């Protein structure tokens, strides 16, 4: 029965258990951490199978649901729930964490704390994806932020303090507003429920209560309260996604954090923002989301093109990937707020694809930085001959990132943009236009590193003169291969994922009723 | 009736004078002595208000015990050093202090004069035991009854307080070794 709690608490307890290891046994710590992450992955896969047996909707009785009373009179209880969308994201998080821990065997200082924080980070994210009570959602939201701050702050590059500080400021301001929103929604919902006749209705934060229109205690909030509450929630999620004006923490955080951490941040954490919009904002505030959707779409499109253009001239490897990642998330948001079945299924599918592709790109950037010690693009050049395997892996990931038809990102991007196009033609066209600058900066990124004539001065040429650069070691290859296989598999056979996502999207969105275009 | 008024006024003037003396004298010993006088005058006030026990207690404990302690400490701590020669670090403090004092007095008196005139005895609210006991016009026996029935718990607490105070004094008094 408590399958979901096991999935969340296992990495938490694993992380804590890890702290009791003696500090100097670095190898043992790394191995156990990887073991824990892999066991967690198996647990999640078991969960997937359990789910696929009886593919259920969010509110059907047999839905994988757990609920324990916590503060009964406040309507707060420890309740978890899962449907197709959270299943996909939970699996992505578990996979990426296992891979990123596998890729972190080069971290030397304070390995024990590092691994513990990574596992804590994973359980925070899993909690966010599975919580079905607003209070519990907020707790996991914060539990996710703390390890991210420490991972970024202690093991990062030179400007890590500044980056970590900015990251926390942006995220916590957003999440405090969300807390206000959470408290307020319980209160207004109660008011509305009482007004609607259910005199005995109490203050509740239980998602199934708030969303379940047939429940006895269901009050419908009026337009303006919905709008204000939506803005409160949107603040936290917009920072996390990030939408354009709130994105300036991302380039610093992604370029300063160690590569495995950035891979996890970009791969999984940014999805919690979009998940928040999808699971909380749209169902809870249907009217308000309609008034706000055009503005969010415009922000998304601006974000897509603005960051694509910015990525053209970045000199720092990870910064370039950071901007590209914002651009991709813009496409996801555009798909989500098109309120069409294709757009939303496409955006969830693209969340998974973007997670995989960005993780590979950041890990490779990390391997390169580990070998040469520099992140400046100008120092690199013509490495394909020396490190062919790394070049091939990077090329596949770069192609997937620029949306080459036939690979994984194309399927998600195509569906999202199709949905966006059906909702609003001009935004659809502008969104699709990103394909051109995306190809341009991705190729410039790959060519700058791998093709052309090797740079004559700078750190890379020094390494080349000294002893040359080693190609991918077996461990590194083993870390990337699963993701590369997924890139090809989802590209060729996306029906597997859309089969899981589509019914859940339709189910989550029936609250929009007429607005949701099949 | 006039005797009351005259005695009150005399007492009032005397108390005010000695109170001012406390804060005015340069020499600490003088202000200590003037404080003792103030306490005595207050005891007289209490007598005037027929609070016999309190008046006696006031004289015995306050004037007697506490002030003796005060004098003891004052004489010990270099009485000759008067503070006028020291530069006053924050001169504006005095002016503002004085002003605020005046405002306080004005506000309080305004409040008292315009507030509800409490002249006669009023039936005490609540059903505290003391209310039944005061039928004897507030004499010591009534006070004792009230103390040990109504206020037993606070009485015990104060005893605890005093023990703590003694321990505190012991700790601070210890010669730094």
């Amino acid at each position, binding site marked *: 029965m408590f399958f979901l709690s096991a999935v969340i608490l296992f990495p938490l307890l694993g992380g804590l258990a890890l702290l009791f290891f003696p500090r100097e046994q670095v190898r043992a710590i790394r191995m156990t951490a990887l073991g824990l992450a892999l066991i967690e992955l198996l647990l999640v896969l078991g969960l997937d199978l359990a789910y696929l047996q009886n593919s259920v909707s969010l509110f059907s009785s047999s839905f994988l649901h757990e609920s324990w009373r916590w503060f009964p009179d406040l309507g707060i209880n420890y309740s978890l729930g899962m449907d197709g969308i959270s299943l996909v994201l939970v699996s992505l998080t578990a996979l990426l964490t296992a891979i990123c821990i596998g890729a972190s065997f080069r971290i030397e200082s304070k390995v024990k704390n590092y691994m513990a924080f990574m596992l804590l980070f994973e359980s925070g994210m899993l909690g966010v994806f599975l919580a079905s009570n607003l209070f519990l959602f907020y707790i996991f939201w914060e539990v996710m932020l703390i390890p991210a701050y420490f991972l970024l702050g202690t093991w990062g590059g030179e400007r890590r303090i500044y980056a970590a500080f900015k990251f926390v*400021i942006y995220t916590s301001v957003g999440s405090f507003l969300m807390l206000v929103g959470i408290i307020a929604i319980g209160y207004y919902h109660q008011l509305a429920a009482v007004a609607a006749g259910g005199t005995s209705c109490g203050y509740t934060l239980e998602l199934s209560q708030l969303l379940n229109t047939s429940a006895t205690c269901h009050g419908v909030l009026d337009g303006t309260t919905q709008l204000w509450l939506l803005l409160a929630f949107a603040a936290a999620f917009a920072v996390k996604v990030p939408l354009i004006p709130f994105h*300036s923490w991302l380039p610093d955080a992604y370029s300063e954090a160690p590569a495995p951490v950035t891979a996890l941040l970009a791969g999984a954490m940014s999805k919690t923002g979009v998940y928040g919009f999808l699971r909380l904002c749209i169902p809870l505030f249907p009217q308000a989301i309609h008034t706000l959707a055009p503005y969010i779409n415009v922000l998304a499109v601006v974000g897509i093109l603005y960051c694509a*253009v910015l990525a053209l001239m970045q000199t720092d490897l990870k910064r370039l990937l950071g901007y590209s990642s914002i651009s991709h998330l813009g496409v996801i948001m555009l798909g989500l707020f098109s309120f069409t079945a294709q757009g939303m299924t496409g955006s969830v599918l693209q969340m998974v694809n973007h997670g995989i592709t960005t993780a590979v790109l950041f890990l490779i950037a990390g391997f390169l930085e580990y070998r040469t010690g520099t992140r400046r693009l100008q120092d690199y050049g013509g490495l394909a001959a020396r490190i062919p395997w790394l070049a091939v892996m990077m090329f596949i990931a770069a*192609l997937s990132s620029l949306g080459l038809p036939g690979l994984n990102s194309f*399927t998600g991007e195509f*569906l999202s*943009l199709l949905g966006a196009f059906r909702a609003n033609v001009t935004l659809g066209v502008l969104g699709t236009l990103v*394909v051109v600058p995306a190809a341009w900066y991705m190729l410039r990124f790959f060519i700058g590193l791998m093709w*052309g004539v090797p740079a004559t001065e700078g750190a890379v040429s020094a390494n080349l003169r000294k002893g040359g650069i080693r190609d991918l070691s077996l461990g590194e290859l083993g870390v990337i291969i699963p993701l590369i296989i997924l890139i090809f598999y989802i590209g060729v056979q996306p029906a597997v994922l859309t089969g899981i996502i589509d019914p859940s999207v339709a189910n989550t969105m029936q609250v929009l009723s007429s607005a949701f275009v099949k | 009736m006039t005797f009351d008024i005259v005695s009150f006024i005399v007492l009032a003037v005397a108390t005010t004078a000695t109170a001012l003396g406390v804060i005015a004298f340069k020499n600490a010993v003088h202000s200590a002595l003037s404080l003792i006088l103030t306490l005595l005058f207050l005891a007289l006030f209490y007598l005037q208000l027929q609070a016999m026990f309190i008046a006696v207690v006031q004289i015995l404990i306050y004037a007697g015990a506490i002030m003796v302690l005060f004098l003891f400490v004052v004489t010990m701590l270099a009485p000759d050093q008067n503070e006028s020669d020291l530069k006053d670090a924050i001169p504006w403090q005095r002016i503002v202090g004085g002003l605020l004092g005046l405002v306080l007095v004005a506000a309080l008196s305004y409040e008292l004069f315009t507030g509800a005139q409490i002249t006669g005895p009023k039936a005490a609210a609540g059903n505290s035991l003391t209310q039944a006991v005061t039928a004897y016009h507030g004499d010591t026996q009534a006070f004792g009854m009230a103390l040990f029935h109504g206020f037993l718990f606070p009485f015990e607490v104060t005893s605890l307080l005093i023990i703590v105070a003694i321990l505190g004094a012991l700790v601070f008094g210890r010669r730094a070794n």
Partner: protein
Amino acid sequence: MTNLSLWVLLLPLLGFIILGLAGRFMPRTAILAVGWGACGLAFLCAAISFFSMLATPAAQRTSDQVVYHWISAGTFSLDFGLLLDPLSMTMLLVVTGVGLLIHIYSAGYMADDPSFWRFFAYLNFFIFAMVMLVIANNFLFLLVGWGLVGLASYLLIGFWYQRRSAVAAAQKAFVINVIGDFGLMLAIFLIFQGAGRLDYAGVLTHTFPAATATAIALLLFVACAAKSAQLPLYMWLPDAMEGPTPVSALIHAATMVTAGVYLVARAYPLFEQSPAALAVVAGIGGATALFAATIALFQLDIKRVLAYSTISQLGYMFMAEGVHNYSAGIFHLVTHAFFKALLFLGAGAVIHALAGEQDMRKMGGLWGRLRVTGLTFLIASLAISGIIPFAGFWSKDEILGSVLAYGNQTGNVWYYILWAIGILTAGMTAFYMFRLFFGIFAGDYRGASVAVNDNTNGDVEEQEAAAAGHHHAGPVRYNSIHDVAPVMSIPLIILAILSVIGGFIGSMALFGLPNWSPLANFLPAAMHNHAAEGSLTLEWISTGLSLLAGVLGIGMAWRLYGKGFAFKQNSNPLYQLVFHKYYVDEILNAVLIIPVLALSRTLSRYLEGDVLDGGSRGISTLFRGTSTFMRRVQTGYMRNYALGILLGVVVIIVYYAVRG
């Protein structure tokens, strides 16, 4: 009807995977075995399917084979399927046939290249992508093929990735192809919006409202223009000559660039629904034909001459399709595939013989040494110039005839102008082809004698650098030149034969023979019955004139360059303008590339740097400022604190006093 199209698709993919993973360790013969085997078997399967298709009656010649369910989201559901019908059969034969010949040829051409295996892996990947594009049964997998083909051309153009010019050309080619993908994607969105499905069977029978039909057709044409290097988006093809010559032959002459022509032919019901789009197709086709031909007149690098010639011939194909005669377009596509591939391979043989030399001024008099290459090159030149028995004559004249007939039928003066442009371009084509032929084979050998930098003109230097960039050891002595090995000359000969007899698959109605045009009958009737049926006299006039133009062109070339190519620098502005390819690259750079990069640089410095970073830094300084101010309240003097307390008390009392 046996349909082996799935094998035609999977065999090259298999070849690519084997060579891609293990190619590095395989000996040369094994590489060739896999490469030739995969492509050869694919051609065999295509041939088998072709003959079985010929055996079946015309009606049941299409077989739509669903492979697996690809995706489903809401009402959008799509299966990946293969459609084998006469049109895709023709394309399959061309792709795999010419592909096989080029595979054989490359064994010789790339013999001395260290990453021999990588070349064959990419070739196989290209054939897989092109086959996917051609036999997909829905627009989405057409887009997938479209993208993969763009990737293949990127990989092959940038094959020698150490060379800066090749890398830049590859990137330019890919980005411009992505612009095409962008157009195709929008068209697909519109199609789904209108028809609710994407497979050809459903979409091509659906009638769209006029405006959407035109929008879809034009967007599809944007994709074709990018892929087939038509006017606005052609500039990547001349730079694509940086790739090895077999690549130019296969991709940039015979197969990939014709994908646009195939797309228009495939989606002809859509184009039929919007006459405006067809007019645009015809117009741009004609304009590109003329424009590219003018540039080709004065090029010095033999491969660039052929590149511009390809652009021009593609213009012809689109002209044919613009006047509703899609089968004429496909016919010219097939014949063009033969003689243009032959021309490129011939040029490749010349370059190979001269150890990498590509500049006409350092060739000449090779007729004596490269006899086979010379002969096949001559045949191809005659074919492309539209001289009577050769393939080019039949296909080009069918196009010009139908343009004239269409002009006559609709009475629209523009089509007459278009026809005139066609004739003029035919003449120019003949001129530059024979200028090239005489430049290479006639006169005396200028290789060793000419010092490299004898002329002053700066931009010629640029052409020198581009040509010299190709790793060649320096001018080869005349008598050490020897003709190419049989592995290269056999494909030349086969293609030469095809260039001669290729024309006879087209219509012979001209000479009173019964309407015997196997290709037109093979293709679905609807692809040419909308075309205008001009009277026989009109046919004779346009054929006669185009033949005359061809002969004139050859004559002028003979008079100017008969005795050998002599480069005369002349400074009249018109010549300079054309010589510098209308400065298109420089304009593109100035108008598009530099401004966007500058915008990106300023945005990241000012908007990102100052406004956003500054903003967040500003907030933190704000907080620090208020905190330092608050700190001064803690003065340390106890009396101040007492004063504070008193102030509080006083305020409360005064408040109550005032409130009363």
